[in-house]
């Protein structure tokens, strides 16, 4: 792993590198950002660089050498100065390594190795939802010992820190407040609002923002070998999360987009749209595939946004669905004066409803009828005008 393996986040990389460079390392940091933005990767890279024996200093930053003994130990995250704390499966005891069940240890070991290879890998053990007090006590115990290796910085990384139980959080307060020499505690969370204020107020917060679509598309193309056009499409609705983008990689995006555009066409048909539309919707809703519907709606949103962009700018230079240029231009020409913002808002609202488990037919049918109304009004207005 290296700084370059983490997509974007230049501002944070610069901030962390400057801390190491100037030897002004904070006692506790809270990396808050949604999954797939690289928070854990940044924390590990921070640990690796601050422990590197012979770091490479440049005018713009500092990077681990990758060849020294410390870097070798970071290769499989086995460096004694790095301590990972994650949620462990519920059950009696087993919050300390020596008490964990063999299968949990094996699973955790595999996942840590996966994280060592891929900074975007998310450690998640089955049935593990809480970081319990036992795990925090063990962490505190190791902190009372002297450093395992002199020099370098001990980094304690608590992944999904919002999963700490209240008892665990309270047990941790004193450690955060009276940190040990040479130790940086890094908490990562997707939901900082769910953490105790007493914890967050003791940490320097670093907000890890969502990634830009272009960065994501570039990464998908470069690292995962996705063709550029597909990468752009996937990136545009990954909502800034590389993990999310990768989870869409295996989905048939073009197929879904075709389905949803067909659905739109069906809804905009002349008189005989009712039965085919209801049948098509029934078929989609039957699958009860919430994720698929959410994705289809997101694709519809993109498609409509492209159409709107052609209407507004008069060119198709900035559209995302590049392969659909002809269809989009035709669509924009037919519905030039439609109330696009209203349609886009309606689709966005539907995405939220699907997310909240509203019955799929009850979301899709009103949406499509609403869209039909808007576009038909526009078309009749155009006709009247001409």
């Amino acid at each position: 792993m290296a700084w370059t393996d983490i997509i974007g986040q230049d501002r944070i990389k610069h901030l962390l590198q400057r801390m190491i460079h100037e030897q002004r390392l904070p006692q506790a940091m809270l990396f808050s950002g949604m999954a797939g933005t690289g928070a854990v990767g940044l924390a590990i890279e921070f640990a690796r660089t601050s422990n590197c024996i012979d770091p490479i200093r440049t005018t713009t930053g500092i990077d681990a050498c990758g060849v020294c003994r410390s870097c070798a130990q970071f290769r499989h995250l086995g460096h004694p100065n790095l301590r990972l704390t994650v949620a462990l499966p519920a059950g009696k005891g087993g919050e300390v390594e020596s008490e964990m069940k063999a299968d949990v240890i094996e699973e955790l070991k595999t996942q840590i190795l996966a994280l060592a290879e891929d900074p975007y890998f998310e450690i998640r053990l089955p049935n593990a939802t809480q970081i319990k007090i036992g795990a925090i006590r063990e962490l505190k115990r190791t902190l009372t010992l002297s450093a395992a290796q002199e020099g370098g910085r001990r980094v304690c990384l608590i992944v999904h820190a919002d999963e700490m139980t209240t008892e665990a959080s309270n047990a941790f307060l004193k450690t955060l407040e009276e940190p040990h020499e040479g130790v940086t505690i890094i908490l990562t969370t997707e939901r900082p609002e769910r953490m105790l204020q007493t914890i967050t107020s003791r940490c320097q917060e670093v907000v890890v923002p969502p990634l830009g679509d272009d960065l994501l598309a570039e990464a998908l193309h470069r690292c995962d070998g996705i063709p550029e056009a597909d990468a752009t499409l996937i990136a545009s609705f990954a909502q800034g999360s590389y993990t999310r983008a990768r989870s869409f990689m295996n989905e048939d995006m073009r197929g879904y987009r075709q389905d949803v555009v067909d659905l739109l066409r069906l809804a905009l048909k002349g008189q005989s749209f009712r039965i085919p539309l209801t049948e098509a919707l029934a078929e989609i809703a039957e699958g009860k595939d919430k994720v698929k519907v959410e994705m289809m709606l997101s694709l519809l949103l993109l498609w409509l946004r492209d159409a709107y962009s052609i209407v507004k700018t008069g060119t198709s230079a900035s559209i995302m669905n590049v392969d659909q240029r002809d269809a989009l231009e035709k669509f924009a020409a037919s519905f030039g004066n439609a109330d696009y913002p209203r349609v886009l808002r309606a689709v966005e609202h539907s995405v939220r409803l699907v997310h909240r488990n509203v019955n799929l037919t009850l979301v899709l049918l009103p949406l499509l009828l609403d869209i039909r109304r808007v576009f038909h009004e526009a078309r009749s207005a155009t006709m009247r005008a001409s």
Partner: protein
Amino acid sequence: MKFTVALPELQKALQKILPAIPAKSTIPVLEHVHVVLAGTDLTFHATDQEITISLTIPVAGEQDGEVLVPARQFNDLIKELGNAGSVEVSANEDSALISVRTPTGTYEMKGLDANEFPAIPPFPESTKADFSKEEMQRIANKTVFAVSTEEYRPSMTGVFFQFASNMVTAVATDGFRLSRVIIRGEDRFPDELDVIIPARAVDLLKKVDSEVSMEVSRTHARFTISSQTITTRVIDEKYPPYQNVIPSDNDKTLVVNQREVLSAIKRVSLFANTNTRHVRFRMSERVLAVHSEDEDSGGKGTETIPCEFSHDTFEVGFNYRFLEEAIKNITADDDPDLNVQMTFSTPIRAVLIKPGADNDSLLMLVMPVKI
């Protein structure tokens, strides 16, 4: 790397380093032994990131090198090879493939790159102290039992070594009892040094088989026992001022025979309440009555044994487990007659327990309980 080694030596070496290999770990490198061959010296390093054990044995070395060998697998294999003859071990550093060849079999296992092993802490300007085998065993055996297991008092989870004016005081306490061993060392000890060694490391020193040289750096302590070294991280805390709890005005003195009082406590404690573990000492000039009573079950027991007591009568209660562990700690090398001297002041103040032969090299303290 390539060498030939006699099986018994190899087996013995592996047994000595195994305590540092964690039974379970999420870090693969810790489940490996770092094996280094330099000339005819074969060195093993094993660590769990807290304690590192290193050991060097002579072998017939052919080609120098270093590799990480999967510890359990290697040890299990070597154990199964019987205790006669020798094995030839070779390793390819690039592929980390280790092969073991015996007269009848060949085995191959996959190791790891030696660079991934945690660095062995250096001891550049360490302070040094030399102990005889008996002295180190004495410290380890007579202190560790009193160490605290409560994580909220981290400093008390280790044994405190305090070097000053040519002697070392080793102290362990958990707040309910305390054990202090003093060893005088003329010029073998540093002038001034305080260090807290984790109980686990001191536990390993119970079985040392030759003199021990102890070195302390800022972050680690290292115990060298002939060809073996045990390196441990130290507890980076301040030890509580234990001297303040040792009373100096205990005016009542009881002397009893260790065996008699121990067996009395053992028998009587069978009838003590299993939660409170209370036993009561009722002393008069010539007789000590050890008594327990469990109101829940209605059971009670009393034993009387001869003693010498400096006052008329006195009564005090104990947690029998603490008392038993303390008294058991007095052995024939403290007092050939195995007499125990206990001193008291009031029934709620600390009780001191010493060997009957009046020396200050071993002192224990137990807090009584209110009865």
